[in-house]
């Protein structure tokens, strides 16, 4: 055992795979300590808040102001107010109205703004422009008019009288220290369609998914191992029968069986554990097949025959004389089953057949929600990309471990 581990540590692939997997596991254990609470708590009222540092505007008003005269502040402000697509639109307007813009580049915001203020005529619609486009230009113009004001005023409106009280005046040079604001929240991965913290949800989902993978892998490996051992060691009609089952279930796609069973179980009964067990029940064939062929090559070895002659029980022969020889193989098969179990859950959830949605998130469910709310077509990458990356990384690390082990236990593949 110790020797095997030492050997494995020499395989760079195994070490890398195990490393990534351990990092994922540690994150799962440590992150909830830093950011405790229910991962499904809806903190945002809106949907898909962008990742970043959020601070309370309410509290920010109480923080004393400092005046900082930064030379590039005005330019930056202009750039952010007049977006690149706005500038493209403005240039298109100039070309339509015959203003010479051959020397003006897109980055030259000042010149574009000057030209706009000189040339835009609100009452004169250029020919060949649709009404919608013209309306867009007018809104843009209204927005541009606000630029250049030295200060903005904040009012408090009395809900009963409608009276406005001026609360404060904000200058372009006013700054406050972010660290002095009482309430801030860093949303590393923003919020999802329900307004939940994606990172917190992801960490919790990752745990559930790995658990699903482990249960599915354990069930599949157990059945596969049992069938493989029985078929390989006993032979005869047991072997024929088990091989018949195995062959049939290898060809019938497990994916289809999964869908049929999950759909029949119904939404209410479908907890994470049930889904995991169902996945395990449909994916044992690979293990059974290969364990059987390994056992067949073992069963007539001398040490097994010696055990038989000594009158050892079937159970004892299997446990002491056969299992140790196929243990490495079974562990490898288990690792692959875990990774394919996680993937199966994700695919089932994408089809709308995943675990029931109220209690725990899983990676598949997160992906399903993101797709249902069209996060991908609207550019809310934080709602789906981290999920894909997590599934890929888990599966990658497990497969890397497996490849490493393969090279250690199977000398012909060694580099």
């Amino acid at each position, binding site marked *: 055992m110790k020797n095997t581990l030492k050997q494995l540590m020499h395989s760079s692939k195994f070490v890398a795979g195990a490393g990534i997997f351990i990092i994922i596991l540690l994150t799962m254990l440590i992150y909830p300590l830093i950011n405790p609470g229910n991962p499904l708590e809806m903190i945002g009222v809106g949907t898909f808040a962008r990742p970043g540092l959020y601070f309370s505007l309410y509290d920010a008003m109480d923080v004393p102001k400092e005046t900082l005269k930064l030379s590039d502040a005005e330019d930056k402000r202009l750039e952010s107010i007049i977006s690149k697509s706005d500038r493209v639109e403005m240039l298109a307007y100039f070309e339509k109205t015959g203003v010479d813009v051959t020397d003006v580049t897109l980055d030259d915001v000042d010149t574009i703004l000057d030209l706009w203020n000189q040339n835009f005529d609100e009452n004169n619609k250029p020919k060949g422009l649709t009404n919608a486009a013209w309306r867009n230009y007018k809104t843009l113009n209204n927005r541009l008019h606000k630029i250049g004001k030295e200060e903005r005023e904040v009012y408090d409106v009395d809900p009963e009288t409608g009276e406005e009280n001026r609360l404060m005046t904000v200058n372009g040079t006013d700054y406050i220290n972010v660290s002095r604001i009482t309430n801030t929240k860093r949303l590393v991965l923003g919020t999802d369609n329900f307004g939940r913290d994606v990172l917190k949800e992801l960490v919790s989902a990752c745990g559930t998914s790995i658990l699903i993978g482990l249960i599915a892998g354990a069930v599949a490996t157990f059945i596969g191992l049992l069938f493989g051992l029985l078929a390989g060691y006993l032979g005869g009609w047991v072997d024929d029968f088990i091989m018949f089952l195995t*062959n049939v279930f290898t060809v019938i796609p497990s994916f289809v069986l999964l869908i049929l069973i999950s759909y029949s179980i119904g939404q209410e009964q479908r907890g994470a554990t049930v889904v995991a067990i169902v996945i395990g029940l449909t994916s044992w064939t690979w293990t059974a097949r290969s364990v059987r062929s390994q056992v067949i090559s073992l069963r007539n070895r001398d040490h097994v025959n010696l055990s038989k002659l000594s009158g050892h029980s079937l159970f004892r022969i299997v446990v002491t004389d056969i299992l140790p020889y196929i243990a490495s193989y079974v562990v490898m098969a288990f690792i692959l089953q875990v990774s394919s179990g996680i993937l199966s859950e994700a695919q089932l959830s994408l*089809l709308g057949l995943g675990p029931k949605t109220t209690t725990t998130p899983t990676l598949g469910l997160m992906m399903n929600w993101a797709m249902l709310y069209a996060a991908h077509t609207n550019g809310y990458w934080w709602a789906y990309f981290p999920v894909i990356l997590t599934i890929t990384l888990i599966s990658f690390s497990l497969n890397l471990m497996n490849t490493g082990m393969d090279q250690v236990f199977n000398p012909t593949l060694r580099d």
Partner: protein
Amino acid sequence: MQGYRKYFTKKIVWFLITFFVAVTLNFFLPRLMPADPVSAITGKLAAGNADAKAVQKIYDRYAEEFGTNKPILQQYLLFLKNMFKGDFGTSFSQYPRSVSDIISSAIWWTVCLQLPAIIVGWLLGNILGALAAYIRKGWDKVLLPITIFLSNVPAFGMAVTLLVVFAIKLKIAPVAGGYAFDQIPNFSWAFIKSVISHYQLPFWSIVLVSIGGQAIGMRSMSIYELNADYVKYARFLGVKDRKIVGYVFRNAMLPQITGLALSIGTMIGGALVAEIIFSYPGLGSTMYAAITAADYPLISATTLIITIMVLIVTFLLDLIYGFIDPRVKAAQFDN
């Protein structure tokens, strides 16, 4: 021909048995579950309806429609009879379209998308794997981890990534569907062009996902073969490297075909989910729509068709294997 005949008869018998088991499972699995599908459907349809008589009526109507009020064996025979006639009942969600009509319009999209994609992915993967095994040192070290990483991207993940990069960011491919919304299926040039442009992203996402796994398998097989005694012997004899590589490739291919036959079900499953991302009008999207609408007859028919498709592909692969496996050939010469 005796070797071949024996091999093919065995395969055909196997095909028929598995087919029968698959159909039986497709029928019995949903019915073995503790939940009664008819009452589940009734529950969904009659939600909010307090009139027990009306609910009972809906229940009876669907029990009649599926024949669940008859003894189970009789139901099964009826199911078999209808299946061979191609009659899968009427869809709930797309009433009054028949299920076989919906499926026959969806199946060709799936077949034309997945078959070429899986074949191209398999070929490219095998070529890359053989190259990696032959060249070994250097880029094999870099290439292998990258390939393992790529092969672990789930099919739907690859689909979403390609969709976002090429359709939404770069805008060089359409976002969804099998053809543009303003087109009606016909044999005009504009329609074919639209179909081809919509075909690209789903196709490449399936190819990219399947390359990795195949390449890794082929690499292992080729390394194993390259170390075999016959290669060493051939080298001593001074046989040209090219010729040896040819032999090695052929021998390493055989397990790869078996591997493809064994994994085709999983691959198709993944690709079906990828279809949903692109709203490709194939079986995957049909199944998704059926599941969301609780369209029971459609779900059961789609799963059956997918199973049959996988069975047929596996059977064909077995036949091809029989033609190129030298052992089957040898058995033929023996007799």
